[in-house]
């Protein structure tokens, strides 16, 4: 039975349970709903939930666990020594799955009988050819071992599926019957249902934690694999980034430092652009601007924050880059020839700075507005001008909050991807010239993982090590910044 069908059956049982539960409740109340503890629908809902939820959970768990069990038991059949050079257990297992799926398709299309599929032997049939007939393309011929494993795989999957169907439906029916039986007129159905709903709410809230755990686990696991293939010290302290795709990437030099340098350099330029402009804009908007100017200028600035980063990336690559070359490049307006191509640290930094302006300005605006009016009055009452008040009283008072905002902006800049992928260039280098093309951690994650990645070579796995470095840095900045901002808010609440 397919999973969709099983799910439909459970849901059907749920509907059945709803009416059965409701009916039983009404029956025990002698048809008068006022005799019941809860509204009749709660009895129905209670029964339905008990039928559906445990069964659905069981189904989900089964779907996750079964492939593991089968994979393990099938991969035991494969002789470790027989794995050819340049291949891996993972690759062979994916061949096995491909063949097994191919056989399924063949049987489903009637090109093969079930008997054929399970008895087929490589000595007598060209499996690849027969599967090609039904539209399943295999990269290479099928070895006897693979075919055997695939047949075993199908067998186990078949048994597993029947067990699954049986178990899940049994759980659904069991849940329904058990709940139905305990219904009496005094049964507190509402409380039970509400407890169920509350559990669902808690689970939904916990997804945030699951996501974080997922991120951390997937990063750690793959980074561990990477460090088995490539020394950690070389990664963290290497001054060279030159992945080599030949020979399964064994001769690559994968040092993070040039990437980190590019990242920090670009972020620094972005902040040099965004912080003064954003801060002054915030000061003007919150201290000087008339209501109507504020009503127009604030949303206009915030539009900059709503524009997708791909747009900024394209803007950097095709508009700002060439423009900068016209000014700083060979034969440019300044005649300095500092810049050889449109993609450069400066290009990406400028555009990223533009993107961060509203980020800095709206956070700072909030923070400046949180400074109590009494501070302004105190300063103005002493005969300070408005700007003296802002510079000497408001900004110092708001400083922790503003620092927090800048740190959040920095974390944004460090994690920004599309602008640097398109605008910064692809060459990893340690240079001081802001008009050189450099690359960043995020850009390299994209380039190492785009396309068909083979998760067993260091050239692809390095992306996870880069990812974990990025995650740790941005997380540290965020936690620290949020802590500062929260402390700051509490001070004036």
């Amino acid at each position: 039975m397919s999973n969709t069908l099983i799910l439909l059956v459970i849901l059907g049982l749920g509907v059945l349970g709803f009416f059965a539960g409701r009916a039983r409740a009404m029956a025990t109340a002698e048809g008068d709903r006022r005799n019941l503890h809860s509204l009749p629908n709660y009895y129905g809902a209670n029964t339905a939930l008990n039928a559906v939820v445990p069964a659905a959970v069981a189904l989900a768990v089964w779907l996750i666990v079964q492939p593991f069990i089968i994979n393990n038991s099938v991969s035991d059949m494969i002789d470790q020594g027989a794995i050819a050079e340049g291949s891996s257990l993972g690759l062979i297992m994916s061949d096995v799955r491909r063949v097994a799926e191919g056989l399924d398709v063949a049987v489903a299309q009637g090109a093969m009988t079930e008997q054929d599929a399970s008895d087929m032997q490589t000595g007598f049939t060209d499996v690849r050819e027969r599967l090609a007939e039904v539209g399943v393309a295999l990269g290479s011929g099928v070895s006897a071992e693979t075919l055997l494993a695939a047949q075993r795989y199908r067998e186990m999957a078949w048994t597993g599926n029947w067990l699954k169907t049986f178990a899940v439906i049994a759980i659904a029916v069991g849940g329904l019957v058990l709940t139905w039986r305990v219904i009496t007129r005094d049964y507190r159905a509402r409380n039970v249902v509400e407890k169920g709903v509350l559990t669902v709410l808690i689970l939904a809230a916990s997804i945030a934690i699951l996501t974080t755990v997922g991120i951390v686990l997937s990063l750690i696991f793959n980074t561990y694999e990477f460090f088995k293939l490539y020394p950690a010290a070389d990664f963290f302290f290497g001054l060279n980034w030159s992945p080599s795709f030949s020979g399964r990437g064994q001769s690559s030099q994968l040092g993070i430092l040039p990437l980190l340098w590019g990242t920090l350099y670009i972020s620094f330029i972005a902040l040099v652009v965004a912080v003064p402009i954003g801060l002054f804009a915030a000061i003007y908007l919150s201290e000087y601007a008339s209501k109507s100017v504020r009503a127009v200028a604030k949303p206009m600035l915030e539009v900059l924050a709503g524009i997708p980063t791909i747009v900024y990336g394209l803007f950097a690559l095709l508009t700002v880059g060439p423009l900068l070359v016209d000014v700083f490049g060979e034969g440019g307006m300044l005649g300095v020839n500092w810049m050889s191509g449109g993609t450069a640290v400066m290009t990406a930094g400028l555009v990223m700075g533009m993107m961060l302006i509203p980020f800095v300005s709206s956070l700072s605006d909030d923070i400046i507005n949180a400074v109590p009016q009494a501070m302004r009055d105190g300063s103005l009452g002493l005969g300070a001008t408005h700007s003296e008040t802002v510079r000497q009283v408001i900004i110092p008072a708001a400083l922790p909050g503003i620092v927090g905002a800048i740190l959040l902006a920095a974390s944004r800049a460090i994690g920004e991807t599309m602008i640097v992928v398109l605008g910064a260039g692809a060459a990893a280098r340690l240079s001081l010239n802001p008009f050189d093309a450099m690359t960043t951690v995020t850009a390299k994650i994209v380039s190492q993982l785009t396309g068909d990645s083979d998760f067993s070579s260091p050239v692809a796995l390095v992306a996870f090590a880069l990812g974990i470095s990025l995650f740790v840095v941005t997380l540290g900045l965020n936690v620290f910044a949020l802590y500062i901002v929260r402390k700051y808010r509490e001070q004036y609440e």
Partner: protein
Amino acid sequence: MKDMIPVDRKMSTMQDSKISARGVQVYYGETHAIKDVSVEIADNTVTAFIGPSGCGKSTFLRCLNRMNDTIDSARVSGDILIDGEDIYDPRVDPVQLRAKVGMVFQKPNPFPKSIYDNVAYGPKIHGLARNKADLDEIVEKSLRKAALWEEAKDRLDKPGTGLSGGQQQRLCIARAIATAPEVLLMDEPCSALDPIATAQVEELIDELRQSYSVVIVTHSMQQAARVSQKTAFFHLGNLVEYDDTDKIFTNPQDPRTESYISGRIG
């Protein structure tokens, strides 16, 4: 208080008037907050503004150093002269005015800086000190005048927000004195303080009269009676009565004043 000069209230009324307001009207948007108020405030005198909440006494006080300018919807008409100069003249810079007419607010509002920097703030922006030694001297003098020196001299570099409520308010007074104003406006300076701190601040106000013209807005009639020589009673935006404090409290002319003093309105 051994060498305190006994106050002769009669004498103070005869002094020249420092501030004279004529026909002052204030509007907040549509609300008519101050209705045709005229008053003469003398130098070296403590003048108290009393009246029920919302009667306009604080609003009028804020007109005297143009703090109402910071509120967009407020409009002021009429003449307010300080030393014979109209402070609403277009040539007058409110910033310069506020250096001359200092203000202490209802809630102590020290800046989140050190005690020293709080007091030094005014002199610094107005360029009153030629060098660091000058500044140190001004700070010490102001803190002494505000009777805070003994408590604060060992912790000048500690944040002003770390002081107690009464100390904070005296710090704010010291901060106002440091800019060397000629008039000191105080908007209910004791309302956020406990009785002991209140007593200290009141004592201070009485001493400040020696050097400044002090205008104080207060809720408490007892306080007005204790610290002021002249009292103005405001009611619903009108200045009802303005006279020597003794007279207001013993022999009010207007029935509304009498009702307020005897606790029937307010």
